[in-house]
């Protein structure tokens, strides 16, 4: 059996006490000092582990409590109460919700898949990625192997502008030359975070992690220069052509912004180095032209079209912009119509906050995704945006030990990788490449609603 791709995770503790969901309000006044205090009977030994944190000047009980309410219901004088931790509720935003931030921290710490008891407790559905479900099958698909075939599930994807077919000359000799491609073992690249308490150490941590899991990371050109030792795993983003000559030698792939003369520049770069992969980053409002533009770029030989939504996953700078899942469906459809789908490699980024978003983006039509913010959240970022306002980072991310940081990111990706395997196992899909635009494994709420409630109950609409 060939060597299997495996992400080696190891427990990597937080530097700062975690902000937990629940808080305990404990009125010492009136305490009976009863010998058999509920606090000593805590199933999770919370009260024994609690300590006073000098960082946040408070009891650090929140991170241990598991919400069983035994102490609340057991205290004879009813002095113990529970609340939601306001600091926890204030974490993040509508996309990086407190739940997602907490879950990301845990995965970065342990490298394990979040598993819990009892059924799903969240909303029925929601905007963006929460408006779709992945499919599975019970009986009728003989290809599926389930969780016990997971060692045969491959998450490899390729980045290339692949010719639609091979060409042969009249004597049967292959005419199509070698075309460059990169193969990465999971459908996730790293993209530079849009904001953050960034420093050399942070860049190093991210590059180290990208190298360890053998993916690639898009970085600003100046960082690519500073991190020369990781050049195999870095994709310099060349805003303009000043550094083109200096940087392309060491790198497999470079990225340039889309613009009027982007196609011309792609040819120039390819002329400088024949096996260079070139990616074009489409950042600003893509609009309906995005799909056409993606087709155009693919025809022009661009290896990777990278569409970046805003950090929430919506079209940047557009009122009521589409979510990247809808952008991906649109681009995928147009590429299919144009008979370019197998040639193009299309990547989306922005708003990819959980492992499920990776799969969902791919089912909608992306070949792979890039993550940005979760890399920082793995480093304990609270998505407070203090740094954007120029204020101090509450967890001083810029001062991390790069090895610690890299372990945390590797852990997160290890947990995500396992979640991809779980979902692919349930779908009976053994190749991440087959996820791209796989309409047979996805259900959209608009279709389910149309088939169900709109059809059965919709006639009374007023």
């Amino acid at each position: 059996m060939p060597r299997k791709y495996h992400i080696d995770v190891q427990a990597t503790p937080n530097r700062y006490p975690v902000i937990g969901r629940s808080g305990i309000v404990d009125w010492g006044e009136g305490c009976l000092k009863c010998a058999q205090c509920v606090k000593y009977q805590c199933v999770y030994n919370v009260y024994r582990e609690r300590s006073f944190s000098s960082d946040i000047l408070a009891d650090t009980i929140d991170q241990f409590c598991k919400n069983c309410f035994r102490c609340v219901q057991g205290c004879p004088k009813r002095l113990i109460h529970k609340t939601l931790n306001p600091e926890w509720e204030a974490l993040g935003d509508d996309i990086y919700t407190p739940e997602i931030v907490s879950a990301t921290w845990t995965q970065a710490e342990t490298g394990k898949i979040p598993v819990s008891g009892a059924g799903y407790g969240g909303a029925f559905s929601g905007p963006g990625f929460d408006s779709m479900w992945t499919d599975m099958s019970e009986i009728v698909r003989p290809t599926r192997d389930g969780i016990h075939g997971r060692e045969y599930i491959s998450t490899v994807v390729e980045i290339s502008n692949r010719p639609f077919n091979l060409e042969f000359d009249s004597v049967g000799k292959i005419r199509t030359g070698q075309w460059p491609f990169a193969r990465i073992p999971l459908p996730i690249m790293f993209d530079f975070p849009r904001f953050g308490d960034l420093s050399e150490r942070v860049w190093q941590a991210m590059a180290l992690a990208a190298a360890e899991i053998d993916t690639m990371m898009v970085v600003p050109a100046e960082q690519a220069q500073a991190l020369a030792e990781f050049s195999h795993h870095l994709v310099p983003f060349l805003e303009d052509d000043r550094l083109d000559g200096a940087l392309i030698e060491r790198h497999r792939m470079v990225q340039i912004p889309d613009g009027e003369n982007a196609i011309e520049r792609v040819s120039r770069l390819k002329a400088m180095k024949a096996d260079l992969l070139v990616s074009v980053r489409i950042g600003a409002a893509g609009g309906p032209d995005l799909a056409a533009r993606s087709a155009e770029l693919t025809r022009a030989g661009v290896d990777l079209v990278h569409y970046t939504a805003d950090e929430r996953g919506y079209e940047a700078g557009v009122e009521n912009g589409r979510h990247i899942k809808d952008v991906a469906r649109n681009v995928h459809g147009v590429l299919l119509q144009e008979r370019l789908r197998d040639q193009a490699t299309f990547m989306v980024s922005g708003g990819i906050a959980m492992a499920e978003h990776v799969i969902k983006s791919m089912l909608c039509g992306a070949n792979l995704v890039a993550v940005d913010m979760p890399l920082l959240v793995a480093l304990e970022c609270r998505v407070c945006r203090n740094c954007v306002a120029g204020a101090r980072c509450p967890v001083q991310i810029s001062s991390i030990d790069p090895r610690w940081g890299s372990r945390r990111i590797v852990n997160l990706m290890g947990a995500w990788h396992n979640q991809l395997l779980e979902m692919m196992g349930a779908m009976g899909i053994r190749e991440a490449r087959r996820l791209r635009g796989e309409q047979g494994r996805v259900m959209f709420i608009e279709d389910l609603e149309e088939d169900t409630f709109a059809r059965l109950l919709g006639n009374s609409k007023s």
Partner: protein
Amino acid sequence: MRYRNVWSEVPPAEVVNTPSRFDHAIGPFNVVISDACDHCLKCTAACPEKVFESRGGKLAPPKDHLCLGIDCSTKSTRCVRSCPVGAIRVGINPDARALGDRRWTSDLLMSTWHMAETGRVPKNGLEYRIGGSGGGFDKLRLVFPRRLPRPSLDKDSIDTSVTLNRRNDGRHKIDIPIPVYGGGMSFGSISQITMLARIRAFAAWGSFTCTGEGGYPEALYPFDDHIITQVATGLFGVREETLQRVKIIEFKYAQGAKPGLGGHLLGPKVTEAVARIRETVPGSSLFSPFPFHSVYSVEDHKKHVDWVKAVNTKALVSVKVSTPSDVDMVAIGSYHAGAHILHIDGSYGGTGAAPDVAKKNIAMPVEYAIPKVHNFLVEEGVRKEITLIASGGIRTAFDIAKAIALGADGVVTGTSDLVSLECLRCHNCESGRGCARGIATTDLELVGLMDLQWASQRIINMLACWREQLREILYRFGLGSIRELVGRTDLLAHLDYTSDVPDDDIRDQLR
């Protein structure tokens, strides 16, 4: 005195007041008595809900979970003003906000506890019908006619029973008097007390409980006629002898909370007893693989059904599947394979442990699957020959009524039974020693937190309250039997498609 062995007795289906087993039950309001209290006990007479009681001539800690609220307490004749020393304070309970989630809101938890304690719908304004998930059942409403269609209907004789064998094939004829039975929870994922409590409670109502995939502990033998034994992919504890004990055998192809993934019981929960029943090794994690590796087609599936039918020549066969987009095809396949019951388990169903990514994302919510399957079976002309059971997110009597109106014959519950045992959905069933509240654990100390008789009675009470609610709902629809409700989507409205939907609270008096 004769020795009564409650462990083997089916209790009567009667409501018996069964308060919380913890010192302080949680409700929406807090009643605090200050040190100024001189135990004059005037408050005990002022409160209609008996929040205040005396114990040994002194005022006992108030049962504030029964409190009707601040408005009630400040009326001239009620507790706050009747206290001569002003020692009573009533306020919102801050703990309530920290409880629950979107599907099981703190209101729904507290109202289910209330039903399990008293057998009645709470009076204090708690929401008891829906959760806060913002979709599916939580956006569906029952649309009662403005005027009672059949005022002469005798509420107490309204039929809530369901026929489980509709094939007329010489096998057991089973009608259950309530449209609900208990879903599979294995020994190991829950304690033996929890398991027996569910079995006894459903048996009291003449219904069934599924063993789940954890074998058939000897303690269950007295209840053979009320047990569904499960055959799942791990085949843990499945023997010919266990298949022959029961009247219904359930094949579990998949579970709604983790469809396509199989089961996983973590090592620490595999105690000596669990390992013995499952015929495995203590302390070592147990996997139920997905799928049945002997079933890769509907033909294979038929072979499976034929096998158990040969092993037990009288038993009914239930097929439990989750809800992929081709669930209708699976349904018709199961019908042709000879199943009596098709049990669809939607994606938001319960579990003792599952990856969060699976619970949230894989397969469709049961609200979509029920009409899909029901209508397809009707089109295929076989709907009358198979019983359609829905589960995976059925929390309340209203969910039951909605599921049936969407096309199911009955439902299966699991989480609500545990909530009636004071589960508060902290989601930690799987970690370490298991449930801190002694429900989903095999830890010897934690198991001792719950008494069998108490637990059985709590579930009996909840089911009693559900049946009363269902009867009231049918009464308001003018239906004499719950069978007439099946597929009546015309009695439902969905907030996204209809405006001005009237409130369907059955606490409101009929005019």
